């Protein structure tokens, strides 16, 4: 269950990253268009997104389990990217912020520019945490030794008794034991001979 939830957050992380980047790009392009500035000056805003892309792709390519299997980090990444997506959504679609419709902008630039430092801080924080997690060496888990048979306690005690008996027997001089064991069928025949009805006995032969 934990693995499934972790994988869901891991995949959701990438989806939210693309969504948040797309919204931020749209807002920044419109903002700089209104200000008459070139997009080259917006590079400082997109640097944390670039760093996150690089770091996440390294995690994916190198299959770093310290990051992939860290559910807390995946949840935090999803939360951060969700916050950025929500800010972008409000900038464009929340018409209760009056500056949204002022002079036909269609976006609350004031609100987004106030959110930019927090966005940068959260993204850089994620990048630094990811880099720290990359340095964690995975501990090799010991392979569990499988025992061939697990004998119950009662049998052990019996075995111990037989062992003790055998030891006792060994102390006394060895006697030949008769190895003959009568067959069950011969026993039955013997029983038949002892029966009283001679005629049936003969027939049975």
């Amino acid at each position: 269950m934990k693995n499934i939830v972790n994988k869901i957050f891991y995949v959701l992380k990438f989806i939210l990253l693309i969504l948040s980047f797309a919204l931020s790009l749209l807002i920044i392009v419109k903002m700089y268009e209104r200000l008459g500035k070139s997009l080259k000056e917006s590079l400082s805003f997109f640097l944390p997104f670039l760093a996150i892309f690089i770091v996440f792709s390294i995690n994916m390519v190198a299959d770093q389990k310290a990051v992939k299997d860290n559910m807390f980090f995946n949840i935090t990444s999803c939360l951060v990217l969700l916050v950025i997506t929500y800010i972008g959504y409000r900038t464009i679609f929340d018409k209760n912020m009056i500056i949204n419709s002022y002079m036909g902008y269609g976006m609350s630039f004031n609100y987004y520019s106030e959110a930019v430092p927090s966005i940068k801080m959260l993204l850089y924080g994620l990048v630094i945490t990811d880099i720290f997690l990359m340095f964690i060496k995975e501990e090799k888990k010991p392979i569990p030794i499988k025992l061939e048979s697990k004998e119950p306690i009662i049998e052990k005690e019996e075995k111990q008794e037989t062992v003790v008996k055998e030891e006792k027997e060994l102390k006394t001089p060895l006697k030949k034991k008769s190895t003959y064991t009568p067959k069950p069928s011969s026993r039955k025949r013997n029983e038949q001979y002892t029966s009283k009805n001679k005629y049936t006995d003969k027939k049975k032969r």
Partner: protein
Amino acid sequence: MREFINQYIKLIASALTGLIFAYASFYLILNIYHQQEIARVMKVDVQSLSSYTTIQKNLDEVAENIKFTPNTYKGPYDTTMLLSMQGAISICRNYIMNDTFKDLTTHQEIGIVDIENFRSSFQNDVVNKCMIEQLYYFTSDRPILKEIRPFIKSNIQLFIDSDMYIKRDIFNNSSYFFNSDHTDNTYRSSVKDAFAHVMNHYKSASDFLLEVSRWYKDRVEER
């Protein structure tokens, strides 16, 4: 040593993740709170407000005061000039009771967007189209306008500057402020305050027009 460094790095990473989680949660909750805050509506019946009834009463009196028939006029002033004054006051009266104001009286709930439309209608219709375009005629150098000229000039300037505070307050609603139900009920509610201010400006405009119409009536009745 390696194990110690490994554990140390894990600790730092966990601490950083925790800090980021806490700040992101706080920021998300703050934004959700802010969205709810600016989406607040005010329940009001505009037609039952005393300021609305005063405005209606003033405009009805203005309509009575500017009744002028040039055929029966026997006063000292030029009828063309009196007719143009009558037209200006009548147009101004229609701009005060504009479509936005009439539409607002049908609303049972008013939000910040309605308040902004109300405020911008005051700016565009009442101040620009009524006072500057129509009533500024009354500030020209004619002997008949000698008494009313300073009154109209000073009031028009006041009306031009009146909505700067409201406009700034409404436009800055994208910035955060921590408001609670207590402060909302006691001393600060952006929707209620802005609505009350704009309504007050409309009432002041109707009072001003009433004074101008009474002056006009006195000129018409002058023999």
